[in-house]
């Protein structure tokens, strides 16, 4: 339980730091971000949204109140999910833009990271078990080579070859034009189809890391006595590999999951950009390019949150998978 409390304390603190960093960033930057944002709205637009100036000042600074008053106003607005209006999506509030784009990104990065994890650790496990075998000598270097490619370059290559030249995948947007998002078969099927190549690209970038990690740990685990004993007990090879060696070897790489996830969130931006995929990553890029600071601020917060949640989920998983953690 002490372990649990300590982890929770860390997460509360991490969330607080993310909130505060988000508050301080625009204030540390040269110029007047809030003023820049206001300049993007016409006087009639400002008039149509009473209180918008105060909100921007609280979020981005530059008003005549003290930093502390701003900070309290900022936190207060956050608790109401009031992050102002996105200038590039006028008149949509930031929270609505995030709510609309985030599901695509979560689906994309969630599926890709999970698949990369499962396939990567699986291959790493087999490669270590049969060192010098086909998996070890062919798949491992190939996936590591792929991992050295920046995600956006892989994405461009894939769009060109598999999309354009071979025509295997749709290459733009998240669903076929003309469909309305909703829970109907035509839309879901189209969305899945459009997600395939982006998911593969993210996987290509991140599977190699898992393979390498798992392989290294697994090689050490194989020489443990409990693995030798499992083999001596006359268990089937497969069972020794999975339930004894693999089951233990997976614990250390699991701790690196959050870092990988944070990396994948970064890769997501590039992939969405290349595929014109209407997720939170593409939105972030567009907002940053268009000086839509309320939106970039909100999105950074959401991304930081996502990574913290992933961290927390991995801690919980570790707690479930390792009885020694549970005991301490």
């Amino acid at each position: 339980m002490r372990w649990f409390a300590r982890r929770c304390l860390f997460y509360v603190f991490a969330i607080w730091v993310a909130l505060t960093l988000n508050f301080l960033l625009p204030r540390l930057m040269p110029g007047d971000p809030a003023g820049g944002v206001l300049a993007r709205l016409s006087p009639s637009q400002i008039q149509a949204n009473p209180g918008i100036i105060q909100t921007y000042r609280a979020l981005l600074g530059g008003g005549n109140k003290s930093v502390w008053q701003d900070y309290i106003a900022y936190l207060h607005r956050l608790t109401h999910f009031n992050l102002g209006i996105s200038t590039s999506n006028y008149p949509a509030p930031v929270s609505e833009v995030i709510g609309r784009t985030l599901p695509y990104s979560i689906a994309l990065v969630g599926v890709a990271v999970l698949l990369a994890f499962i396939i990567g650790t699986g291959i790493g496990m087999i490669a270590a078990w049969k060192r010098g075998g086909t998996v070890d000598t062919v798949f491992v270097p190939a996936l590591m080579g792929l991992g050295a490619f920046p995600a956006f370059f892989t994405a461009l290559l894939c769009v060109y070859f598999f999309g354009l030249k071979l025509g295997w995948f749709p290459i733009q947007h998240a669903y076929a034009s003309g469909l309305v998002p909703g829970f109907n078969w035509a839309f879901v099927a189209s969305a899945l189809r459009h997600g395939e190549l982006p998911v593969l690209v993210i996987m290509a970038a991140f599977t190699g890391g898992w393979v390498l990690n798992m392989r290294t740990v697994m090689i050490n685990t194989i020489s443990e006595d409990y693995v030798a004993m499992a083999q001596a007990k006359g268990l089937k090879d497969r069972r020794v590999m999975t339930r004894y060696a693999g089951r233990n070897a997976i614990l250390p790489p699991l701790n690196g999951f959050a870092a990988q996830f944070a990396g994948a969130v970064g890769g997501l931006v590039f992939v969405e950009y290349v595929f014109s995929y209407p997720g939170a990553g593409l939105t972030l890029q567009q907002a940053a390019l268009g000086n839509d600071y309320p939106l970039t601020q909100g999105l950074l917060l959401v991304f930081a949150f996502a990574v913290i949640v992933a961290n927390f989920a991995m801690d919980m998983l570790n707690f479930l998978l390792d009885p020694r953690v549970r005991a301490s």
Partner: protein
Amino acid sequence: MSQLQPLLEPEVTPLSVPAPRKHHRIPGWLSLLFENPKSRFGLVLIGFMILVAVIAPWISVNNPTDFNILATRQAPSWNHLFGTTDQGSDIFSQVVLGTRRSLILGASAALLATTLAATLGILAAYSGGIIDEIVNFLTNVFLVIPTIPLLIVISGYLNARGMTTMILVLGLTLWAFEARILRGQALSLKSRDFVHASKVAGESTRRIVFGEIMPNMISRIAAAFVLVFYIALLVDAGLEFLGLGDTTHVSWGMVLYWAQTNSTVLQGEWWPFLFPGLALVTTVVGLVFLLAGIDELSNPRLRTMKTKKRKKASR
């Protein structure tokens, strides 16, 4: 039984460090790196890219962003080795000149980040207590906040993104990657005898940190530099690709940005993205191999080839 033990102790064989061969005027560490096949391959690739960067002005056209309406969107040919852009600019020149800029930016950012990571990591490990707690916490928090989105947001706030600004921004965000590892390394060194000895001898903290601990971590710090170097290269090119990098110079990322913005890929033009991408991959692969070589040199256990199998009879 205790009497029997002294002579039954497992034999400890010292790890054999390959004696550096004497080369003329080549420093020892460089010849060591050249003897390891991985780092040799890496050094050759990086050497090639550095050569390109040095001779760039002589092999490129004068102004790589020159328009040429008569030569737009040409596939690679003898006139334009890497083809031309939508505006008719020569991609070869852009890539070659971009090399110089990418290498300088990556190396400077890496230098800054590594200096920060090494100083903070070692200082934290050595002083312990509250300083250690703070640095450690800061590192962990930095690792939780996703770097690329953070950099995108910061770049968005900055109206003028010159090279110096980007070096500062990258250096200040990428240090956390290595700070944790260097701290761990310093912690284990801290408890070694020679550090205790200098402490007892009354040497100053600064002297111990920079004179005793730092030199013993040099290979790890070099590895950190190479790692951050290629991360910085990738991140920098990525930001430019998104249109959020240094827009004052020609760079690989910018060529890619224009290729993407003009949808050249969708029109079946492969040269505007392939060549800058390959330049980036070549450099990164070179650095990755150099890193693997350094790791092998500092940790002989990772070496697989040629090491004579030690006696391992009783296991």
